[in-house]
């Protein structure tokens, strides 16, 4: 897919909660095609502590409204500065980067998307994309408490939403891998993104139940386009770049 360096315009900066903002970006020209699982590299301005670009998942693309959504968790200076972007500010992105999820062959496959924390970001676009292509799917979202479950309404508009919270304030109490649905239904495909321990637990479940499973990895990146070789992960084929051969990996390929 052709990659672009674009200056997008902030159409809206929605404060989701103390830790999260949703940036709705747009442009005069039509946004280029982007696939679920792909990400962008954001140039952060006015931040003396942020030298490199910051990778952020594509949260959603609304081609009709010509909108690109980025869900940003504030963890350091770079994401803080992103969260302070104002309507009509310009932000420079490289996009679209990375690979995408592998869709099942059969449209009637039982598909589960498992997300935790800001890892739910790519799953929204994946869910919407699946739906658009005729695949029904369910979401299993985990968080510490209800406040940590993001974009619930958006997820609910796409498919069934199951949830676990550590404090029991929403859905079942516990971790995602403890959710009862996993004992009841045999899924054909599981896609997951979230904290590494969570993804590892999901991968273990998938292996145990012999389920197709793809995970979306995070990693520190410099270039985002396969040029620097800084973002490798260890696979059965040796060190490969998360930014080009990932971020989405079949668990069979990972050395987990």
């Amino acid at each position: 897919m052709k990659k672009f360096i674009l200056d997008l315009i902030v159409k809206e900066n929605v404060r989701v909660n103390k830790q999260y903002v949703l940036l709705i970006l747009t442009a005069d020209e039509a946004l280029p095609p982007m696939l679920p699982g792909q990400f962008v590299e954001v140039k952060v301005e006015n931040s003396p502590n942020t030298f490199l670009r910051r990778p952020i998942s594509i949260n959603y693309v609304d081609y009709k409204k010509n909108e690109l959504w980025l869900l940003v968790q504030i963890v350091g200076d770079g994401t803080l500065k992103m969260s302070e972007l104002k309507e009509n500010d310009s932000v420079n992105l490289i996009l679209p980067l990375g690979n995408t999820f592998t869709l099942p062959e059969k449209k009637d496959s039982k598909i589960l998307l498992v997300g935790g924390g800001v890892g739910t970001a790519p799953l929204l676009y994946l869910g919407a994309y699946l739906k658009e292509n005729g695949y029904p799917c369910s979401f299993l979202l985990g968080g510490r408490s209800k406040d940590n479950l993001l974009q619930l309404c958006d997820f609910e508009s796409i498919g069934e939403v199951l949830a676990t919270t550590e404090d029991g304030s929403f859905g079942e109490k516990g971790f995602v891998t403890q959710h009862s649905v996993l004992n009841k239904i045999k899924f054909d495909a599981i896609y997951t993104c979230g904290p590494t321990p969570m993804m590892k637990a999901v991968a273990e479940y998938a292996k145990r139940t012999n389920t197709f499973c793809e995970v979306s990895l995070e990693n520190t990146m410099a270039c985002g386009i396969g040029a620097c070789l800084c973002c490798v992960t260890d696979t059965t084929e040796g060190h490969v770049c998360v930014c080009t051969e990932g971020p989405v990996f079949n668990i069979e390929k990972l050395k987990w």
Partner: protein
Amino acid sequence: MANLNINIGDLQLKNPVMTASGTFGYGTEYSDFMDISRIGGIIVKGTTLRERQGNPYPRLAETPSGMLNAVGLQNKGVDYFVNNIYPTIKDVDTNVIVNVSGSEVSDYVATAEKLNGLDKIPAIELNISCPNVKEGGMAFGTSCVSAVQVVGAVRKVYKKTLIVKLSPNVTDITEIARAVEAEGADSVSLINTLLGMAIDAKRRKPVLSTITGGLSGPAVKPVALRMVWQVAKAVKVPVIGLGGIMTATDAIEFMLAGASAIQIGTANFIDPAVCVKVIEGIESYLNDNNFSSVKDIIGALEV
């Protein structure tokens, strides 16, 4: 319109802007962002005799105005390059130069020999300055004796333009530069990365898997500029300057200090189209200041 042509040995550059090894992949990674044939020279990834997996993750730490990397020369080896990569890049209409590394003198020699036969590779850059590998690498570039060994041996088998990339992690870089010049290097390029380190105070652990790594980016520019200035006065062969170049102004500073050409490394990560911007910026500078050729600004610092 100012003339941007520059020669480095037999190597003819349409302009003095090259890309730094390890930061530009094989060039093609950047072709969505600009016409890479406009670049004076593309120096591709560090290539070794045999495939290398490089160092474990994490390999990257961000630092004030720079970054540390510990890639460790991950590449599929020279044979793979010759058979699989060369065919895909040989028709790019610019100079493709291979950066060569090794753990033993014989590795360098064998790799250079294999590259000598490739029509569309007019030059190699000997990397005797990689700080991220246990054996060889920087060790060759920090003593005259070993630098002379490797350059002398490669010079015997490699007939085209031989650039030697110097390490800044030395007391006197001019000594090494003169030594490799005497062995027949056609040019020296500098600087490779400065050896640095990052620590995660919270976890009380090094950030990089290899503890130390190579520092690059604007943070190192003052050191790089000083070394280019020193080396340009010390040797007769053309000097290629790099280290922290982000803009055309930075590039011009290196040329004023004595560099005949420059390389852009880390800046490619921040702006994948930076090379053409630097070329255009140099051109404007020359035109604005009534220089008819880029050669006029080489070493033109008034001191």
